[in-house]
């Protein structure tokens, strides 16, 4: 484990990067988690005309500008996916599977995923529905587990669970080759509903029903309140004050994850505000205010 950072930033879109540069300018020790394309959404934009100063630009060109800016400031991204952020009181623990990072403040800039939860997913969360198969696998020893997988990373989790559970169903929501143990049954179908009484009993698909005790929904990004337990969400977005602070002291949010409009310049602006607020927060705790 590295030493404790001042600010950890989760997300490398305009919000996260703007937060990063502003934190760096204020001489804070930062760590930024993101992906190699910076923002998968940005690079798909064919033309952007409302980002002040960069008119008639493509998403890829704007992304290249962001990249040059952060490189010029010596900011390097960590290409690791944070599974969880635990608010420990005077610091935060950020987990990438078993690996742990610590930071005094956190800025959530994870963007907005538009997939709605499956019927019953939220109702049975913690009662058979989970987002981390490797975390909960031992609870399903000798039981049936269904994995609804949105990406290739889920394959490894499925293989791990198959060593513990009695039976594993793998429902891929993506195409390609599936590197899965032969005893895992691949089911090409669409999830419709998760049902049961006190706990999960059935996963209903379009073409058939699966009797199962565990359902794991494995996606690219984790919903903010799953990522940061205790984080207050309102209308599907992280609830923030004008200074981008959330209900958890030391935790700030910026960009699409805080709400509409989903616009790049708005995100960059919020990233700056979040960074400056985080800096103020850090200075206040250092001075014992």
């Amino acid at each position: 484990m590295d030493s404790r950072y001042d600010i950890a930033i989760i997300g490398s879109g305009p919000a996260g990067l703007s937060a990063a540069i502003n934190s760096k300018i204020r001489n804070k020790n930062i760590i930024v988690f993101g992906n190699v394309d910076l923002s998968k959404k940005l690079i798909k934009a064919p033309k952007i005309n409302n980002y002040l100063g960069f008119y008639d630009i493509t998403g890829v060109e704007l992304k290249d500008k962001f990249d040059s800016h952060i490189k010029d400031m010596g900011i390097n991204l960590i290409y690791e996916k944070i599974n969880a952020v635990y608010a420990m009181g005077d610091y935060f623990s950020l987990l990438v599977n078993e690996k742990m990072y610590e930071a005094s403040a956190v800025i959530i800039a994870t963007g907005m995923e538009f997939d709605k939860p499956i019927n019953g997913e939220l109702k049975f969360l913690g009662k058979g529905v989970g987002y981390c198969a490797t975390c909960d696998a031992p609870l399903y020893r000798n039981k049936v587990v269904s994995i609804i997988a949105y990406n290739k990373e889920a394959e490894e989790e499925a293989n791990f669970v198959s060593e513990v559970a009695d039976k594993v169903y793998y429902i891929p929501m993506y195409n390609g080759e599936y590197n899965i143990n032969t005893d895992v049954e691949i089911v090409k179908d669409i999830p419709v509903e998760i049902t049961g009484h006190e706990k999960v009993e059935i996963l209903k698909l379009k073409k058939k029903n699966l009797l199962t005790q565990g359902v794991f929904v494995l996606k690219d990004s984790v919903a903010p309140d799953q990522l940061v337990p205790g984080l207050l969400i309102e209308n599907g977005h992280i609830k923030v004050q004008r200074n981008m602070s959330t209900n958890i002291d030391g935790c700030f949010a910026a960009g699409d994850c805080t709400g509409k409009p989903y616009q790049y310049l708005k995100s960059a602006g919020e990233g700056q505000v979040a960074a400056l607020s985080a800096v103020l927060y850090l200075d206040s705790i250092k001075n014992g205010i």
Partner: protein
Amino acid sequence: MVNIINDSSFAQEINKDGAPVIVDFWAAWCGPCKMLSPVIDELSSEYGEKARFFKLNVDENPVTSMQFNVASIPTVIIFKNGKLAETLVGFRPKQAFKSAIDKYI
């Protein structure tokens, strides 16, 4: 002070009247449980005599875990006067536990 509780001592400890009893269901292989442990310790110190805190290892105590439908860990259950009052699944910050426990003090 957080004490250990198990299948055999459970009923006896829970059925004492008065202060709420908070049980942290955990396992050695569970990451979030390890993160929660110091939070439970802090809560125990802060509440003193006003609430009783216990830890129960789910691998070693399957009977109690099944009795209360513990399907995901960590799970923290608040008992009041021998009955289950509230179940909190998953890690959450100390303040969130305080808000829940304070309802039963």
